[in-house]
């Protein structure tokens, strides 16, 4: 059975380094799953394209259609790759606003690979200090290896670039292991599981 992986790309500029990292992680995860005999369907959600819709949904309480489709896609995923630029030591406001729209149960037991980019290595702990607590709160199953890429990781220094590729591979392997070990995600239809009123009333009458 094909497993679905959704990449949430929080990069704020076109051809952003976050998107670049996210693409690498998506490709490496596809490869890692294939190595385990599992086909993967990887889709990327670019938050930049939904920036207005995300703000609108925050104000009105409902999401425009394209944004709702993205939200539904994340909720239905067997695994998620969450990538954000680091601003002021943390994920961006847009990234958090999107996560806020997903609801409390969005990541219950879902394997999530955490990734971030920044100008300097000085921000590297944002993954552990900001991203991981957020996803722990949401009861996600976070992959042990988070992938952080600073400017130097993309640069000409062969060692640094090699190190990033290695981290990407290791994290993708860990994500693939978690995805394969779990049952395919089943999205619970709230309409199908609504409580019977007789039960609700019975609880009070007892």
């Amino acid at each position, binding site marked *: 059975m094909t497993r679905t992986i959704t990449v949430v790309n929080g990069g704020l500029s076109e051809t952003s380094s976050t998107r670049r990292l996210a693409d690498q992680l998506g490709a490496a995860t596809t490869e890692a799953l294939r190595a385990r005999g599992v086909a993967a369907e990887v889709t990327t959600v670019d938050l930049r394209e939904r920036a*207005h819709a995300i703000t609108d949904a925050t104000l*009105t309480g409902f999401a*425009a*259609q394209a944004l709702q489709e993205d939200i539904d896609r994340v909720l239905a995923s067997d695994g998620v790759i969450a990538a954000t630029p680091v601003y002021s030591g943390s994920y961006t406001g847009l990234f958090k606003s999107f996560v806020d729209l997903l609801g409390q149960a969005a990541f219950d037991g879902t394997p999530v690979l955490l990734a971030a980019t920044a100008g300097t290595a000085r921000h590297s702990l944002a993954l552990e200090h900001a991203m991981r607590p957020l996803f722990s709160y949401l009861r996600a199953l976070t992959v042990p290896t988070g992938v952080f890429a600073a400017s130097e990781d993309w640069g000409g220094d062969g060692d640094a670039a090699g190190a990033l590729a290695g981290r990407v591979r290791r994290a993708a392997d860990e994500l693939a292991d978690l995805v394969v070990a779990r049952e395919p995600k089943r999205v619970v239809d709230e309409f199908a599981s609504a409580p019977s*009123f*007789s039960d*609700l009333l019975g609880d*009070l009458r007892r």
Partner: protein
Amino acid sequence: MQLGVFSVGDITPDPTTGRTPTQHERIKGLVEIGKKAEEVGFDVFAVGEHHDHPFVPSALTTLSAYVAAQTERIIFSTSIAHITTNDPVLMAEQYAFLQHLSDGRVDLMLGRGNTGPVYPWFGKDIRDGLHLAIENYDLLHQLWRTDVVDWQGKYRTPLQGFTSTPRPLDGVPPFVWHGSIRSLEIAEQAAFYGNGFFHNHIFWPSTHVRRMVDFYRQRFEHYGHGPRDQAIVGLGGQVYVRPNSQDAIREFRPYFDVAPVYGHGPSLEDFMEQTPLTVGSPQQVIERTLAHREIVGDYQRQMFLLDHAGLPLTTVLEQMDFLGEHVLPALREGFAEGRPAHVPDAPTHASLLAARQQTDATSSATSSSTTASESEVPA
């Protein structure tokens, strides 16, 4: 088809003038809107209960009785009344009293309402909201149908041999709608009692509204009240109308852009596309509103939000005049077209009384009671 006006009674500065109406002006304005609603041919006038700033409608039965004294035909409803923080005993009595004063021109739309801070003002806790809605309504339902009630629950003092006063007019309790945007439990509650289900609709994409109403219809049938297309459904809507749609857009945009509920968010155009908001010509309003049937099927009540976002009273009254002349007749005709004969109208005092008299006639050999009507709720 019942066509109505519903209001939340917000006090919002007019963004084009900066002027904010006083509470007194707004309360008197609601009276004018209620009277105008009858004058131009609406069937229902409903106001939503609020106790927090910037809203004024805290005393719905007082408002309704005052307008009822100055009108003859229009039905008073609520949009919504709080079944959570109001005492169900007081509600049973006040709305029955209103029913007598208005000669049966009253029904209720119940909801949980309120934000967290409001509950403690009435000695309640929002975390109990759902259970309060269930227990309180169950008691209210009983108080209107059983003359002498012995009752014990979790959220209020027990009742022993209690009779709520006055008894409902002609022994017929006001029809009840349950309003809910997201809570399936409330749609389920409406279905369980065979009551009406109202979806506010005005801030919600039609895919969601369709699922909520479908769910209610399906559960209505499940609880044995009849086939799903006989369930009683109401929808909200909001319109701003001018003969020329460009004028409507131009006039309404400044109000939309800074409105408390959606201002500074989506564009007017986006919001119109995503929700039932229709700003335009009479024909656009007519077509859009009639198209709601494609979402929920043939339904019984369409309510319009007209007085909000700081629109001045004069504009609201003009809108109502215009709707009465150019929109309501076409809507009535349109909604009647193709509507199957077995789809019922929204219950009214007259229709409920007639139904009860028919039931009484068939069972008159065994009972002569005229005050206690039988509960239609399955045990």
